[in-house]
Each structure stands twice: as C-alpha cells, then as structure tokens.
C-alpha cells in the first residue's frame, strides 16, 4: 500500500518530466497567469503551434515572489524568460545582472513612451478603487474627497506582500509627493483593513464588507464580460491613476536564446495580445482596434497617467513604505 502511494506521489510529481530538453522554453511567471482561467493555457497552445517547441510556463507565487525565486536560483536558473515583473521591480531585477537586453524596436500603444532596453511590456492597467454602483451612488472623485467620506470604508493590500498594495503607495506618492503623508493620515480612518494579497481584499469587497476595494480600472470589465454585471465601477480620480506595466525579460544565461527572442516577439503580437484582456483582465500593449471589447476602453485620459520610472520607483519605495507604516501603525 505504502509502495503504491509513493509511486502515485512520484508519478504525480514527475508528470512534468516527460519532455526532452531540446526546444524546451521555460518561462517563469506568476501563479494566476498559468491558472486555467488565466492566459497561460491559450498562450501555450498558440505559441506551440508555430514554434515547434515545448513551452513550459512555470508559476512562482506572485510578482515579487517571482523575482525572489529567480534571485534564489541565481545564475543556475533554468528560466529562459521571466514574465510578470512590473515597473516597481524592474530596477531591482536589472541589478541582479541576470537579465539581458532585448535589442528590439518596439512599436507599442501605451499612454507613456517606453524606453527600457531590457524589459518588454506585455500588459498594463491603472490602479483604481472599485465600487458597487448600486450601493455607492456618488463615488469619490479624488483622495481628499475619499478621506472626507466617513460613510466609505476601503480595503487595501499590504505593500510588503502585494503588488497592488505597493502600487497604491506609489500612486499617492506620485500624485501628492511630500504631501503624501497628509493624504494617508486622512485615509487612515477609511481603511477597514489591509490584506495580504489582492484575492483576500477582492473577496471581502464582493462579500459586501467594504464599499471600495483597491483593484484595477479593468476589474469592471470582468464583471461586464464574464458575468453581465454592470454594477461594478472604477472610481476615476482627478489626480490621475498610477499605472502598472507588466513586463517580461530574457534571462542572460539562457541556452534557448533564439527561442526566447521568438517568444518575446510573439508576446507583443496580435495573437498573444488579444488573449490578454479577457484572461488576465488587463489592457493590451498594442492597438487591437475592433478586436478589443468596449468594456476595455480606458476611462483615464493619457495625460492623467501617473508612473515613476524604474529607478525613481526603486528610490521612493523604502521611504514611502516607512511613511505608510508609521501613519497606519498608530
């Protein structure tokens, strides 16, 4: 019996082994990317149709865990491509020296110009507070108004453990600079609680615990397209919205350099990009024209896009975090 079970466990754990090592492209990514509802399965299928290779998408927690994983593996990493870091992490990722330049001329459709020579964006979104318009009839129009509304409770994520959480920190900093601490002081009473990750926060919001949740302007698109529910809306703030740009980069030590380039090229093709919106629920990085569902029309105008470049993001991060910790720990 025990022997059978060990065999079973071994079998279950080694099903990934049954490939030769030639023409295998290993892409490390975050966990929700590879879930059966995420973009992973469709992308794997369509890339393998053309590349005559085996594309292996390997999950490693979320964005920050992903980078930590690559750092842990160091130069010996098996990854050929790392997909799923965002601009708050790219400076640290470059410092590791594990990534190589992409040498591509990119023709992207982003609200900002993209100058990074190492990482290539594959999707993006605006952070925003999402609310149920059946319950909240007048949404706040900026952080100051949100802080004054004692009837509105918000759920946010912890910047130490969650990418959107860190995004909010950057958002307030980018919009208010040195005044950021005042904004946080004002917001503190509105914060119902801080969760470890996006999932818990969104779960609380969906159960009606809080009026607003920190998420993305694309979240309502999910409810419209997948559930035909028009009630969830993103509150549009006058200060502008901080962007999350998700990127991928080629690993320096890869033994599949050509295949990796091919994949990165594929990543910004129509095929890949048209999978992204309704699986990853983010905006595509190229203009899909009529192929993009109307629910994905950006509610934020280009000149209201906020983002720190990678180096500034790295510099502000620590001081913004200690400021946040200090104010919310009181």
């Amino acid at each position: 019996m025990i022997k059978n079970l060990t065999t079973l466990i071994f079998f279950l754990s080694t099903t990934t082994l049954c490939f030769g090592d030639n023409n295998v492209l290993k892409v490390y990514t975050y966990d929700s990317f590879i879930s059966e509802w995420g973009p992973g399965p469709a992308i794997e299928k369509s890339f393998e149709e053309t590349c005559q290779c085996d594309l292996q998408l390997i999950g490693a927690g979320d964005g920050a865990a992903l980078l930590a994983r690559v750092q842990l593996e160091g130069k010996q990493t098996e990854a050929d491509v790392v997909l799923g870091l965002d601009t708050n992490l790219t400076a640290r990722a470059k410092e590791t020296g594990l990534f190589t330049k992409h040498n591509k001329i990119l023709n992207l459709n982003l609200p900002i110009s993209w100058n990074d020579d190492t990482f290539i964006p594959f999707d993006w979104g605006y952070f925003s507070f999402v609310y149920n318009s059946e319950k909240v009839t007048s949404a706040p129009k900026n952080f100051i108004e949100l802080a004054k509304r004692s009837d509105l409770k918000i759920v946010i994520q912890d910047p130490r453990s969650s990418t959107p959480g860190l995004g909010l920190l950057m958002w307030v900093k980018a919009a208010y600079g040195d005044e950021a601490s005042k904004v946080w002081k004002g917001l503190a009473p509105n914060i119902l609680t801080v969760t470890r990750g996006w999932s818990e926060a969104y779960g609380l919001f969906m159960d009606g615990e809080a009026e607003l949740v920190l998420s993305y302007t694309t979240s309502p698109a999910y409810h419209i397209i997948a559930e035909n529910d028009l009630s969830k809306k993103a509150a549009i703030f006058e200060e502008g919205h901080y962007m999350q740009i998700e990127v991928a980069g080629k690993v320096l030590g890869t033994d599949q350099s050509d295949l990796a380039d091919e994949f990165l090229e594929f990543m910004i093709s129509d095929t890949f990009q048209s999978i992204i919106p309704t699986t990853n629920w983010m905006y595509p990085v190229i203009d899909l024209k009529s192929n993009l569902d109307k629910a994905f029309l950006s509610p934020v105008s280009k000149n209201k896009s906020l983002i720190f470049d990678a180096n500034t993001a790295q510099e502000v991060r620590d001081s913004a975090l200690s400021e946040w910790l200090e104010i919310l720990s009181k």
Partner: protein
Amino acid sequence: MVRNIKQIKITSLLGWISLILLILLTLGTLTVILFHSHSDFELTPTDFKVIKFTLYQAGISALISSILGMFLARSLMRQSFVGKSVLITILGAPFILPTVVAILGLISVFGRNGLLNSILGPFGFKTLTIYGLHGIVIANVFFNLPLVSRLLLQGWKTIPAEQFRLAESLCFTHKNIFLLIEVPMLKSRMPGIFAVVFLICISSFAIALTLGGGPKSTTIELAIYQAFRFDFDLNKAANLAIFQFILCLAITVIVLWKQQTELFQVKFDRPINRWDVDEKKLLDWIIICICSVFLITPLVTIIADGALAIHLVNKGILVALLKSISVATGAVIICLFITISLGNVIASNHTRLGVKWLMEGTGYFVIATSPLVIGTGLFIFLYPILNPTKFVLPITALVNAIMALPFSLRIILPAMQKINKDYGKLSDSIGLNGFHRFFKLTLPRLRNEIGFASGLIAALSIGDLGVVTLFSAPQSGTLPLTIYRLMGSYQMEAAKAAAFILLITCFSIFLLADKLGKSNASYK
C-alpha cells in the same frame, strides 16, 4: 535477550534518525539561508515592536483558547447526549481550515456585513467591527479552541474510570473531584497545550494582518515575509527567524520544565459513568451551546456559500483534490513514523532525561519555524542537486508532516508515556522489549490516538497552503493553492465551491480516521 537488546537499539536508532531529520529541516534550513546571504543586519526598534506585538497577541489568544477549551472539554466530558461524538468531530473542523477560507468564514459572521450585525442591527445596535486586536483573538480562538478541547478530552479519557467510581463511593463534591482527580491531569497536559497554541499564534500572519486591521498588527512572520519578498534580504529574514526560534525555544523549555508526567495509575479500560452530571447540567449546556454556535456558524456560512456554487466544481478542482489527498497520505505516513520513533525513545525508561527533553522539545518547536524559512532553505539546498519544482508534492508532504508533528506528538506521546508508566516495569521484567513490545503492548493501546492524529495530520496537510507556493508548477496545484488561484482570477464563486469541497474532504478524512481508530480498539 540478545535479540531484544538489538531491537532496543533499532528503536532508539529510529528515534535519533527522526531527530536529525527534524534538526536538519529546522536549524539546517536556517543555516543554509544564513550562508547564502551576505548583508549585515541589526534588529531595529520597529522589529522589536513587531516582536512585542507578536508575543502579546499570541499570549492573549493562547490563554483564552486554553481556558475556554478546558471548560468546553469538561462540559463535554460530563454530559452525554445523542450525537455527542459527531458534535465533537464537527467542533474540530475549524482547526483544519485554510486561513483564507477561515478568515472569509469568520468575516461572514462577525464582519460589517456579517450575520451578527444583520441580526443586531434591527435592534438598534451600533455596527460591530471585528477588525482590531479582538478580531485576531477571535480568529485564533476559533482556530485553536477545537484543538485544546480535543486534546483535553483525550486527557480526561485517560483518567481511570475507577477513580470516578471511588470518588462516588467516597461522596466527593465537585470541588473534590476537580482538585483531586482533574487538576493533576490538567497540570500535566495544560502547559504543553498552552505552548502549542501559543506557538501556532506566533507563526501566523494573514490572520493578524487582515483581522488586526492593518500594519499595526505586524507579526514576526510578516516581517520575515517582507524581508524575503519585498527586500530580498535573506540575512534579515534568517535573523528574524532565528529570533523567533529562540523565543519559542525558551517558551518550550519553560513549559517542559514545568510539566509533569502523569502519576502511576493502572486502569482497566472501563467506560466512565459520571454520576455527578445533573447538578451542573445547565452550566455545561450553556458552555456547549455557546462554543458550538461560535465554532459552527462560520462553517455553515462556508458550506452554504459553497453549496450554492457547487455547479462550478470542475475537473481542475477535483484533480487538485486528488493531489492534496496524496500529499496528505504521504504526510500522515512520515509524521506518524517520526512521532512514534521519537515517542518510543522519549517514553522509554532507558533514556536519559536530557535526551528526552531534546527530542520532545525539538518536536514541539518546529511549529515555530516559519514554513517560508523551511521552504526557502530547502530550495537553496536542493536546487544545485535536483530541481525542487519536479518534486513539489513529496517535498510538500515532508514539510506538512513536520509542521503537523507538534500536534501528533501532543496526541500520541502522553499516551505512550502513560503506557510505559503503567506497564513498562512489568514488560521490562518479563523481557518484552523493542518491536515486540511496541506491536503487542503499545500499538493496540494507541489506536485511538493514532486514529485521531492521522485524521488531524491529513486534514492539516490538505488545508495547508504550505511550501507548494514556493515551488509551484502548473501541474502541482493542491486544493488550497487552487482556491488562491481561483480567487486571483476573479473566480470568487468557484473558490467558494472549492473551499466547500476542501472542508467536506478534510472533515470526512478526519471522521474516517477517528472512526477507524476507535472501531479497532479492543480496549474500551
């Protein structure tokens, strides 16, 4: 005789092997991380605040869980009613829930939009909020009260029925029974139970963060997580982990030092008939009812939510379930092996006191090691040799087994010690030793405990997100990981259905193992 000595040697060798395995997985993984890191690090005032808060919330939570658990176990012991064993099993369920599910369950009862507020609201009560220190305590009690009461129920069952018969004929009052019969048992069990609960409360962070209402409720574990993930400062992570280690070690040592083994009491394994139940009936029933409502309502909301979404259960969820079950089976086998190997040595009359302490202590304070540290250490250690992602499930089974060890040790060890106290000298004198003694004397008397422990280990393993997140490959999703993935892809309803499946599975396994343990017991 020679063969006997050889067998004693083998049993003690197995004990030492288990001990070395434990030390490698705890201190070993920590050392690996320390060697892997380069930066200097000092504990900052913020870190000390974090440490203070961690101890504070764990202390209060453990105290309340222990006291409530004691009353609940006493009431359950005294009253007999139809469906009692089912109720006891149901009350054990919260302990095995994955954190995220438990938090959502608790919030659906105590939250702003929860059941409690919607009941109290119409009567003009102000909206109650669960977020704060009391929220953390409520959650920790929710998790640990079942554990405490189950462990103490076991304790009560080891009191020989003869003592109660004697007490009856001597016309003992309640006070007499409590002081003369129950307190000695409690004295030998409570410190260990308190310590285990305290250690559990130390090492969780999602509960503290979410229900504590924000970063003021930062625990050491969250700081370790931050050091790993946010700063990628392995040195800081390892040092914080060492600090947590030392704290927990200190607590474990104090507890073991204060703890006494139970007195010599041979029992004839008769069922206990309590004659003294009628007088305290009302009080007992109030305690049972309040605790049941507190523990069961969140479960009911999870089940109700999940049952409504049951049509969303698909192949993916079922495959994940199968993987979780195979991991759990592995974890049960490994954990029981270690528990019994250690137990044989600890309970033996031939073992020196220092060794007993070392083994029991190591067995307990693994709970205080951060799974993140074990996982990362293993990863760094294994990566140059083999790709850990290819052995995710066996590694998860191993780590889950280690994490469940303190509980199985707490369940099985006292019984082993008692068997040795009661029958050890006799078997020594007739030369019943080693494997023979284990299979003929010890094992038959341990069936109850092994059944309960197996159910608990399996359920804990199924409900645990564990290290699988560190190594995960697309094919390796266990059920809790699948729940997280579902939630991360907006599939909140499907996640609830999966949580429902998880709860039912944990529960059935727990029930089955418990039943198997009981049905085979020829000594009742």
